[in-house]
């Protein structure tokens, strides 16, 4: 196996613990992946060594410790696969393929990070590389807010934590020109709304991490198309999952 490409290996579970209601944090011992992965990249995790479910689950790296040889992921129990994964215990083995995809284009300066729901999952890793950052997050209820990095500016739709309303409401007072890079991650509709609120003059600084169902994660099945602003589709797993906002055709994002 070449040193530059993704590695497929069995990783020992260091811990799998509830991070919030229905949200888990899993830590895996995967030294080769930990030494290679970049913020915004992802891995394909096999929930079970058996045939059920038939495909893996794509999860973005939440943190990475190259010296300890470990990586962590934050995930919602959304279906059968993540339910099985959430029952992992220390010492279990999980097959993991990674690192995959293109991550954030990291740059010096000041970052604005905007998350919707569990889109916050990858920001601790990005934050660890940023000189200075403001993090904003929106969730439906208070669920998930405990996963946000300290200092995150919060909005909840039910008003239980932070401002009542959507994350786009938090953007109204943002001094856009004070940020060198803007990172957005969350459900497609949320990202479309954030991009729509962004002044055109700073749109070139906006990167988005797209979500998609994935068949393979390593660029061959064509199962994760992202509409391109130049027509046709890009591949979320290979061309992304992080894209420049101006490269995505938001009109065709549902």
């Amino acid at each position, binding site marked *: *196996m*070449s040193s530059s*490409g*993704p590695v*497929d290996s069995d990783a020992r579970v260091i811990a799998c613990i509830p991070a919030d209601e229905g949200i888990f944090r899993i830590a895996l011992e995967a030294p080769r992946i930990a030494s290679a992965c970049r913020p915004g990249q992802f891995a394909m995790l*096999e929930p079970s060594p058996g*045939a*059920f*479910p*038939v*495909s*893996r689950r794509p999860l973005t790296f939440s943190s990475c410790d190259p010296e300890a040889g470990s990586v962590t992921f934050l995930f919602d129990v959304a*279906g*059968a*696969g993540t339910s099985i994964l959430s029952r992992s215990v220390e010492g279990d083995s999980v*097959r993991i*393929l990674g690192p995959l995809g293109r991550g954030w284009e990291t740059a010096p300066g000041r970052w604005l990070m905007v998350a919707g729901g569990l889109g916050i999952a990858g920001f601790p890793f990005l934050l660890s590389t940023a000189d200075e950052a403001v993090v904003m997050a929106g969730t439906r209820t208070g669920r998930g807010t405990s996963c946000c990095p300290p200092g995150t500016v919060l909005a909840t739709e039910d008003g239980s934590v932070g401002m009542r309303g959507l994350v786009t409401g938090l953007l109204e007072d943002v001094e856009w020109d004070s940020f060198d890079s803007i990172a957005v991650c969350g459900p497609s509709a949320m990202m479309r709304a954030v991009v729509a609120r962004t002044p055109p003059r700073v749109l070139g600084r906006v990167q988005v991490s797209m979500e*998609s*169902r*994935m*068949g*393979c994660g*390593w*660029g*061959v*099945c*064509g*199962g*994760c*198309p992202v509409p391109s602003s130049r*027509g*046709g*589709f890009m591949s979320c797993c290979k061309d992304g999952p992080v894209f420049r906002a101006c490269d995505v055709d938001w009109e065709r994002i549902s």
Partner: protein
Amino acid sequence: MNPVTEGLPDSFWGIPVPGPVALASGTCGFGLELDAMGLLEDVALVFSKAVTPEPRDGNAPPRIHDTGYGLLNSIGLANPGLDRVLSEVLPAAAGLSRPLVLNVACESVSSFGSTVAALEAGGSHAGYEVNVSCPNVEAGGMAFGVDPAAVASVTRAVRLETRRPITVKLTPNGGDMVSAAKAAEDSGADAVTVCNTFLGMKLDWRTGRPVLARGVGGYSSPALLPLVVARVWQVGRAVRIPVIASGGVWEPGDVLELLAAGASLVQVGTGLLRRPSLPSELAAGIRELLCGT
């Protein structure tokens, strides 16, 4: 052939192969990603994603759904099209460590002929897989495969344009696969691929709407192995040309079972998407199984 008494194939179409495991079209691109990972070593042949005369963006998303027990896909033959395959893909694939078989899909008999004629000009590919069975496109696709007369016409059109070996990839979705296989054989095919995905659908009962944008898709699953074994068995008894099995392979024993059913080569697809190292894992597992017999 029985792999237990006769051993494993060491060649196919006269090409030396390391074993019986090949890669199914649509699950390995043109082999470049796996080769970059160093994972083609135990692969007999790489069957490319479908090449169509014009570039195709593919179907609207969502294109894929994991039901847990199987995978529904509706990719829609997304590919760069004939011109770019000739100018960009085939030159890049020239250094591939295993032979490439080009899967070709068209909407008319004459287009099959002209597309293969154009592909003859470029590349050192080992042969063609004629796709008359895609469940995910409106025109062409499995509409050809369900009709033995149409299978014969397409096969003849391709045969006239090339001396490289041809396999015809058949559909399990309607029609008589044995008749279709005989039609391919009588029209000059050098093998048949049995078979493409099974037409399937998943609805969200809350909304009554399908989860895939196009509605129906192709279903693949290790649970379908007995359906493929039956079809390989039936077709294998009806034709003299080799049968390439495709579908349901998950474990080393599955490969041996398909060989016992009459297959000469066994493609892996959905299992490969999950584990790019599957061919090597199967090869090691097969050695272990046969060692104990």
